[in-house]
C-alpha cells in the first residue's frame, strides 16, 4: 500500500498553483489529504501530479460576520470546530463537524477539501447543501462562485473543472430564530454514518439533509409535514440502498428515526432561541 509515483508541486502562491494545475490535466490538489492519501496508497487513484496547496498564504482563514461563515481552503476541521464564532453564526457547521471522523483526522483534514471530495457519506457536503452555501473557486481563467445546488453532479463528482481550486466555502448565517440539529448513527463511533441527518427549522420551513442515504448529498423539504410522519415523508424522496453494514430496509428505518429526532431537536433549538438571555 504505497502510492504510485507522481510529480509534485508545492507552489508559494495561488497563481502559481493554478498555473501548475492548468498545465496537467491529470493533476490533483493536495490539501489535508485525509481522503486522498488512502486512495493513493491503495492505488485506487494515481494522478500524474499533486499540487500541494499547504504552502499557500491566506487560505487558512475562517472569517465570520453577520452574513455567515467563510472557511478558507486550508482551514482544518479542528479549527473550524473550535471556533466559537462559527458555532454562534452557523451552529449546524459545528454540530456536523463533531461527527467528522476522529479528532486526529480533523486536525489535518480540511472542511473545504471534504466539501469538494463530494462524498455523500461525509457530513460537510450535505451541510453546505442544507444551508444553501457555496464554494469560491479559482483557475487561471478567473474566479467564480458555485452554489451548493450546482456543485454536486454525481457520486464523488462536482462541477469543478480539473483546473479549478476551491479557495473557500461560504455557509450563510442561520436566520434569527431558526434552529438546527445534527445526528448520526454509525457502526463504530467515528465511522462513516450508516445514516446521518441534519435539520434546519426556520419558521414554517423544515429541511433535512441526509448522510449515507443517497449517492449524492441530498436535502428533503419537509415543511408542513406533521411530527410523527416526517420519516415516511422523507422516504418518499429517498431510496436508501444496501451495503455490507446495513440493508436498505434498515437504512430506511434509520431515516425514519433520525428525521424525527433531528427535526424535533431543531425545533427545540428554535424555541430556545426565541428567549435570548
Amino acid at each position, binding site marked *: 500500500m504505497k502510492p504510485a509515483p*507522481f510529480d509534485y508541486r508545492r507552489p508559494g502562491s495561488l497563481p502559481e498553483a493554478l498555473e501548475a494545475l492548468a498545465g496537467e490535466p491529470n493533476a490533483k490538489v493536495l490539501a489535508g489529504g485525509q481522503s486522498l*492519501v*488512502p486512495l493513493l496508497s491503495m492505488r485506487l487513484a494515481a494522478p500524474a501530479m499533486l499540487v*500541494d496547496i499547504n504552502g499557500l498564504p491566506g487560505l487558512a482563514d475562517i472569517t465570520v460576520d453577520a452574513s455567515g461563515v467563510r472557511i478558507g481552503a486550508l482551514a482544518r476541521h479542528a479549527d473550524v470546530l473550535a471556533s466559537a464564532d462559527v458555532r454562534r453564526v452557523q451552529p449546524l457547521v459545528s454540530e456536523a463537524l463533531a461527527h467528522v471522523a476522529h*479528532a486526529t*483526522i480533523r486536525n489535518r483534514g480540511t472542511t473545504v477539501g471534504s466539501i469538494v471530495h463530494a462524498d455523500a457519506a461525509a457530513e460537510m457536503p450535505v451541510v453546505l447543501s442544507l444551508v444553501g452555501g457555496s464554494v469560491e473557486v479559482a483557475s487561471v481563467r478567473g474566479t467564480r462562485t458555485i452554489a451548493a445546488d450546482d456543485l454536486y453532479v454525481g457520486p464523488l463528482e462536482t462541477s469543478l473543472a480539473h483546473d479549478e481550486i476551491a479557495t473557500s466555502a461560504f455557509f450563510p448565517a442561520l436566520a434569527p430564530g431558526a434552529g438546527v440539529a445534527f445526528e448520526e448513527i454509525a457502526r463504530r463511533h467515528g465511522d462513516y454514518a450508516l445514516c446521518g441527518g441534519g435539520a434546519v427549522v426556520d419558521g414554517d420551513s423544515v429541511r433535512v439533509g441526509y448522510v449515507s442515504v443517497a449517492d449524492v448529498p441530498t436535502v428533503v423539504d419537509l415543511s408542513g409535514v406533521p411530527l410523527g410522519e416526517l420519516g415516511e415523508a422523507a422516504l418518499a424522496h429517498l431510496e436508501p440502498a444496501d451495503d455490507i453494514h446495513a440493508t436498505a430496509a434498515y437504512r430506511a428505518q434509520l431515516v425514519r428515526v433520525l428525521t424525527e429526532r433531528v427535526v424535533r431537536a431543531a425545533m427545540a433549538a428554535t424555541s430556545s432561541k426565541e428567549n435570548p438571555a
Partner: protein
Amino acid sequence: MTEELHDVRLTVNGVAHDVQVPARRLLSDALRHDLALTGTHVGCEHGVCGACTVLVDGRPMRSCLMFAVSAVDAEITTVEGLTEPDGSLGPVQQAFAECHGLQCGFCTPGFLTTITAGLRENPRPTHDECRDMIAGNLCRCTGYQNIVKAVERAAAIQQAASVEERA
C-alpha cells in the same frame, strides 16, 4: 525512468534532518526508514488505526496520511521525543507503565502521542474525556481498560509535577 528526489528538511523532536526522498514517500516511511526513528509504527496505512500518529506542530496527525515533502515547515514529535532529556519516562509513558496500558506495544506510540497532546489541551479531563481522547486509536491487546486508567494517571502525574514546580 528515474524518480525525482526532493530535498526535504524534517524537524523531528527538535532535530533537523536533511533527506532526499521521492514525493510519494509517506511521512511514516520517512521517519522509519530514512531517519530510522522506528518508534512510529504503521498498522494500516489508511488512517484508521492510529498507530502512526505523530504530533505535527503539537497536534496529533496520522503520519501515514501525510507525505514527507509536505511536512517541511512543521515541527514533528514522535514517541522518541516524549522521553525526558535525562532518559526517564515522560508522564504519559510513566502512566502506561504503571497501569499496564500496553501489551504487544505496537499501537502504543500512537496512543502516547495522542494523549500527550490531549492532556496539553485539557490537563484535567473527566473520565469520559479520557475515553474520548483515545477514541481514534485501535488497540487489539488491552481492551482499552488500562489505557483509560493510564490517561487518568498521566493527568494526575502531570498535575502533581506542576504543583511541585509551583512550590
